[in-house]
C-alpha cells in the first residue's frame, strides 16, 4: 500500500523522556529496542525493568532445588512405582559449584555407593533419564514433569521398546555427571535434563543432552543438545518430538554427538520467521 510522504515524525517527549516511535518494532523481536532516553540515558521504567529481569535470573542461579517437591511431582505426574533417586555431586554448595565445574561432573561418594547398590538390583536398561539442577533449579522445577509426560507419551508410541532405568535427580550437577550415572546403571544411552544458564528474559530454560554409551570422561562433542525448552521457548511436545528423532538416529548409528550431524543438513538457511528487510525494502 502506498502512503503519502509524511514529514519526519518528532519524537514525543514526556517528563524529560524522549520516546522512540520505532518501539513498535518490538512486535518483531524480543530485543530491548526503542527504549527511549533521558538525555542519552535509560528512562527510569526501562532501567527498573532490566533490574527486575536480572534479579530473576540471579535468583534462578542461586535458588536451591526443592528435591522433595520435585520427586513428589514426578511420582504423581508419571505414575511411578517408586520416587526418583536423589543424588548429589561433589560440589557441596553453590559457590563451590560455580567455581569448580569438575566437582559438578562427578557424584559424591555416598551417591555413588547408593547408585551402585541400586544398579545391582535392576537389569541394565537402554535409557537412563537424569534430571540435574545445573544453573537453573527453576527450569527443572517448572519444566521437567511436563516435558517427561510428553516424552514418555511419545516413547510409548514408539515401535522400539526403550526400557527405562530408574529416574535420578542430581543436585549441584553439570551435564557430564550423566556419564557416570549412565555408566553405573549400565544404560545404552543417557538423557540429561538440566537447567541452562539463565538469560535475562529466560530464567527457566531447560536443556536436553543425549549421549550414547555413557562413561566417565567423555567430551562434550559426544553429545547432542536440544536447548531452550520452556513455555515461552520450545514447547514440551515439540521438544519431545525432536528428541524422539534424535533417539532414533542415535540408536540406528550407535553413536551420538558431532559425528551424528549430516553436513548437508547444516547448510539449510533458517527459514522460520520473516525474510524481508524493511530497511532496504523500497
Amino acid at each position: 500500500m502506498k502512503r503519502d510522504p509524511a514529514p519526519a515524525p518528532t519524537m514525543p517527549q514526556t517528563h524529560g523522556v524522549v520516546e522512540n516511535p520505532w518501539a513498535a518494532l518490538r512486535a518483531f523481536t524480543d530485543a530491548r529496542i526503542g527504549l527511549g532516553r533521558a538525555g542519552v540515558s535509560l528512562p527510569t521504567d526501562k532501567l527498573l525493568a532490566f533490574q527486575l529481569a536480572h534479579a530473576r535470573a540471579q535468583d534462578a542461579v542461586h535458588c536451591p532445588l526443592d528435591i522433595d517437591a520435585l520427586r513428589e511431582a514426578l511420582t504423581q505426574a508419571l505414575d511411578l512405582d517408586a520416587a526418583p533417586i536423589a543424588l548429589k555431586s561433589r560440589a557441596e554448595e553453590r559457590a563451590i559449584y560455580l567455581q569448580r565445574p569438575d566437582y559438578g561432573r562427578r557424584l559424591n561418594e555416598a551417591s555413588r555407593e547408593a547408585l551402585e547398590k541400586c544398579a545391582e538390583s535392576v537389569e541394565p536398561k537402554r535409557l537412563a533419564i537424569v534430571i540435574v539442577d545445573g544453573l537453573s533449579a527453576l527450569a527443572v522445577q517448572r519444566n521437567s514433569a511436563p516435558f517427561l509426560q510428553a516424552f514418555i507419551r511419545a516413547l510409548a508410541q514408539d515401535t522400539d521398546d526403550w526400557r527405562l532405568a530408574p529416574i535420578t535427580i542430581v543436585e549441584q550437577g553439570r551435564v557430564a555427571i550423566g556419564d557416570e550415572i549412565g555408566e553405573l546403571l549400565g544404560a545404552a544411552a543417557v538423557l540429561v535434563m538440566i537447567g541452562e544458564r539463565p538469560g535475562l528474559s529466560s530464567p527457566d530454560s531447560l536443556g536436553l543432552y543425549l549421549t550414547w554409551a555413557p562413561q566417565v570422561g567423555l567430551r562434550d562433542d559426544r553429545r547432542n543438545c536440544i536447548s531452550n525448552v520452556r513455555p515461552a521457548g520450545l514447547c514440551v511436545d515439540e521438544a519431545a518430538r525432536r528428541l524422539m528423532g534424535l533417539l532414533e538416529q542415535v540408536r540406528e548409528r550407535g553413536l551420538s554427538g558431532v559425528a551424528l550431524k549430516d553436513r548437508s543438513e547444516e547448510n539449510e538457511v533458517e527459514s522460520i520467521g520473516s525474510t524481508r528487510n524493511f530497511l532496504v525494502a523500497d
Partner: protein
Amino acid sequence: MSTTYRTRVGSKSYRFQGLGELMAKASPARSGDALAGVIAESAEQRVVAQMVLAQLPLTTFLNEALIPYEEDEITRLIIDDHDAAAFAPIRHLTVGDFRNWLLSDQATPEMLSRVRAGITPEMAAAVSKLMRNQDLILVAKKCRVVTAFRNTLGLEGRLSTRLQPNHPTDDVTGIAASILDGLLYGSGDAVIGINPATDNVAQSIKLMRLMDEVIQKYEIPTQSCVLTHVTNTLEAIEQGAPVDLVFQSIGGTEATNRSFGFDLATLAEAEAAAQSLGRGTVGQNVMYFETGQGSALSSDAHHGLDQQTCEARAYAVARKFDPLLVNTVVGFIGPEYLFDGKEITRAGLEDHFCGKLLGVPMGCDVCYTNHAQADQNDMDNLLTLLGVAGCNFVMGIPGSDDIMLNYQTTSFHDALYARRALGLKAAPEFEQWLARMQIFADVDTHRLSDRVPAAFARSLRQLPGEASHEA
C-alpha cells in the same frame, strides 16, 4: 630445562619451578588459575613471586620459552618474528625497570610504537602482573593503534562501537530492527557484526547480504561481519558473498586454536582472500578476532600456564594478521574463570593494556553472564575505566541484553554515556555521517536529534501492517 627461582623473605624461603610457575604465582588472583591449580598458595607468595619477577631481565623471555618452540607454532611465531632492533632501547631492562620505563616520560606514544615489535607477549604479561589498575590505564592510553577499512578506528579521543544485532532465530526483521535502533543511537562505527544463531555457510551469506544492503543503501561508512568460523567465511568468499571482515576466535596456544579448528596458515589464507576482494575504501585491515582469558584452559590446552599469560600470547597471533578489530570477551566465559566484577574488571584492563602494548587494535566486550557475581554497576565501572584508557571500541546492543547469546554487554545508551562523560567521539567518517543523516542534532555535544531522520522514517513506513507513527 627450566630454571628454578629461589628467594628468601624474612625467615621463609620460596622456590618457583620454572618461568611458567613464577608467572602464574605472580598473577593477581582469579578463579580460573585456581581451577587450573596454578594460583599462588597465599597472598604473600603472590607478592614474593612478583618481587622475583621484577628482578628478571626482559631477555629471559627470549631465552626461556614457556611452551617449547618445537611443540607450538605460536611460540615459533613469537621467537621468529621478534625484532631485535626494536627491542634495543629496552633490552637492558628488568621486568620491574620495564614498568618504570613504561610509566616514564621517556615512553612517549612514538617511542612505544617504535619498541612494539621488540616486546613479546610474555614480557607484556609479566610487566602487567606488577602493575596496578591505574598503571594499566595510563600506559595503554599512550599506546595508539590505528586501523582502517571504510573508516578510521583507534584515533585519539575516539570510542567506537560494534553494533551487535543478534537474534535467536536470525529473523531478518528482528535483526533489521536492532540495526535501526543502533544506528539511530549512533552505534556501529567499528563494525555491524552478527553472531549467527544457525552457524553455517548459507546462513552466513544471507546475513552478509542483509548487512551489505543496509550499508550500501544508507551509504554508511562502516563494515560488516558475520562471526562464523573462518573456514565458513572462506567458503562464502568463494561463493561470491560480500565479505568485509573475516572473523575468528583465537587463543594463545597452538592446541587451543586446533581445538577451535584452525591454524596460522588458515588465517593467512583468509586474510589474503578477504584482501583480494578490495572492499575497503580508506584501509585494508580485514581481520576481526575475539579472545578471552580462560579459553586455553577450557580447551585443556594451557600447558600449565596462567590464563592471563595464555591470553597475551593470543595477541601475537592477532598482530601477525593486521586486524581491523580485536576484542577480549572478558566476562563471557563465566565465574569458573573470572568469578566476580572485581576479577572481570582487572582482566579487562590487563587484556586491553597487553593488546595495545603489543600493537593490537584492542577493544573490549564489557560483559557478564547471569551466573557471575557481577552486575550493571561493574560494567559501568569497567566501561568508564576503558574509556579513560583509550580503548578502541566496545559493543553496542539494545538495552544490554543479548537475546541470542544470553549474556549482558554494553548498550547503545552505555556507549553514549561514555562518550558524553569522557568527551569521546565516533570514528571521524562515521561521525560526519551521523551529522549528515541528522541522527545527531549536534555531534559535538553528543545531542541526539528529536526527530526520526527522514531516510529512516521512509523505511519505517514500509513495514507490513503497522508503522503508523502518528504518536
